[in-house]
């Protein structure tokens, strides 16, 4: 019965075997995510919304509301406010508009194409070698081929994609609601399955996983707000229409590393070139603003927000982003860092648990106690089978 000095004195650093396991498990999870894309994207959106709404919901619970009512109220209020804000942003657009949305989209696309053609012509005028290469006609031909075959080759895919993804994305609000309502219950459910010997460490593990995900998504939100504000300010200064809405869309697109930034830049340039068709300087200015914001983002905002959230070595981060892109495409790029953060916490904690001889010994001892307790009356029955039954004559 003498207390044994413990072998656990604070968290230990993970070794190369654990780290190999962490990277292997992350890659495996990325492959699984690729196969379950329809669930992965709504889950990301649901998690972002969950961390936004968790604080207000907890305040309502403290005020005496049930978890169910509080989750329902905060979800309903959030989506009502978001819908109103989106409607206001669409209504207050001061850019060029047509009667129908199809015509407006066509107007902006034409503006983008005109900008590319003007730029090609300008380049040919400045550099005669490009004129000799017939750069404008090559680009024009590429555009014509793409637009001619667009309906035949791509429209079907786009329509099927929208039909597939809209119901899937509608899962996000439901996931948010159930995460808010049952998150604590689910955590308790998981903790209940852990043996007593490992219980405190398991609680710590669950807490750390939650904190890692929370830090990542909160960092992502802060980054989005910063990006939106700076980009909106820059676009407003050079005179692009709806700068706040454009800034927000570009900042959300930037959640996907590399690809999202390019898509955001293309969007901004299209709007700028349509706003001022005769003034290509506005579109160039928009590109300049975008590049400036990306530089600020990479060297200032990201280290201040996301960089602090995961505590992963920068080299590992970059390599894993490439691995994520190769294994699971765009979604891999987007998910590799939070997945790595969570798997890292789980791997390091499990490594500590598995390699702790004292905890394993305590678990074996507890199991032996339970086995003994469960079989105590069975042992007596076996003894009775050998001995004469006291009540046999009655």
């Amino acid at each position, binding site marked *: *019965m*003498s*207390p*044994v*000095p*413990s*072998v*656990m*004195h*604070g*968290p230990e650093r993970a070794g190369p075997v654990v780290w190999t396991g962490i990277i292997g498990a992350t890659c495996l999870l990325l492959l699984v995510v690729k196969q379950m894309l329809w669930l992965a994207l709504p889950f990301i959106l649901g998690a972002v919304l969950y961390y936004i709404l968790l*604080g207000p919901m*907890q*305040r309502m*619970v*403290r*005020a*005496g*509301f049930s978890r169910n*009512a509080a989750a329902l109220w905060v979800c309903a209020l959030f989506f009502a406010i978001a819908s109103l804000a989106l409607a206001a942003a669409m209504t207050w657009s001061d850019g060029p508009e047509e009667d129908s949305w199809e015509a407006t989209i066509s107007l902006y696309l034409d503006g983008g194409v005109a900008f590319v053609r003007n730029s090609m012509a300008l380049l040919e005028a400045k550099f005669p070698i490009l004129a000799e290469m017939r750069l404008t006609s090559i680009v024009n031909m590429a555009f014509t081929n793409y637009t001619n075959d667009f309906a035949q080759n791509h429209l079907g895919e786009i329509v099927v994609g929208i039909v597939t993804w809209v119901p899937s994305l509608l899962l996000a609000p439901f996931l948010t609601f159930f995460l808010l309502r049952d998150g*604590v219950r689910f955590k*308790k459910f998981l*903790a*209940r399955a852990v043996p*007593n*010997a490992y*219980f*405190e*460490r398991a*609680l*710590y593990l669950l*807490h750390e996983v939650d904190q890692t995900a929370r830090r990542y998504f909160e960092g992502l939100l802060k980054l989005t707000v910063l990006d939106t504000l700076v980009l909106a300010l820059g676009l407003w200064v050079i005179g692009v229409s709806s700068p706040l809405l454009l800034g927000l869309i570009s900042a959300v697109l930037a959640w996907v590393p590399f690809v999202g930034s390019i898509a955001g830049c293309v969007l901004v340039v299209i709007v700028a070139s349509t706003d001022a068709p005769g003034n290509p300087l506005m579109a160039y200015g928009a590109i300049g603003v975008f590049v400036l914001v990306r530089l600020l983002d990479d060297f200032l905002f990201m280290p201040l927000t996301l960089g602090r959230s995961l505590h992963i070595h920068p080299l590992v981060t970059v390599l894993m982003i490439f691995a994520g892109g190769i294994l699971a495409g765009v979604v891999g790029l987007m998910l590799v860092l939070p997945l790595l953060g969570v798997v890292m916490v789980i791997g390091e904690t499990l490594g500590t648990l598995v390699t702790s001889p*004292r905890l394993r010994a*305590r678990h074996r*001892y*507890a199991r032996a*106690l*339970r086995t003994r*307790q469960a079989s105590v009356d069975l042992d007596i029955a076996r003894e009775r089978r050998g001995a004469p039954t006291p009540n046999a004559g009655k």
Partner: protein
Amino acid sequence: MRSRIIKQTTHRTTLEHYVIFRFLKPPRMSPRLHRLKSSSLFAALTPLELKIVDGLLHERRYLKDEIVFDEGEEGQALYLLMSGRVRISRLHEGMTQVVAELEPGGFFGDLALLDNSPRNAQARAMEPCEVAVFFRADFLGLMETDAVLGYKISLALARHIGLRLREWMGTGRPQLEAL
């Protein structure tokens, strides 16, 4: 006077019928909440606060002789004894020294709520027991989001540690270093 009371009661009942006013109604105290309130740690909490704390507690069951935590282990949680008995002991100059034997309503491992220093004693079940576990991160989260609730528990904790200090100074029992 009587008719006024009836009128007030009727008015309250009418209000409670509306979902929006349901939060005004104090939650009913279940037997479990009564047991929690009987502990000195949660004695000052209102029924609503008890319900919030209860939502954060984890339940564990231990068999006779099973170890709850070891001396030297990193402490992550406080344990509130709901039933059964627990012995707190520590190794002193190669000998096992019994620090305390706790009854239902008692709590142990409380210093883990304040920091993550190693446990100073071992806790072992003396008979089959049921404990409620209060995880440190949940307590710290509660302090941040609900200062009043956090202050009530902290005050109870400070009083408990002060009591142990006075007992130790009066009797020379080694309770101060333990837990």
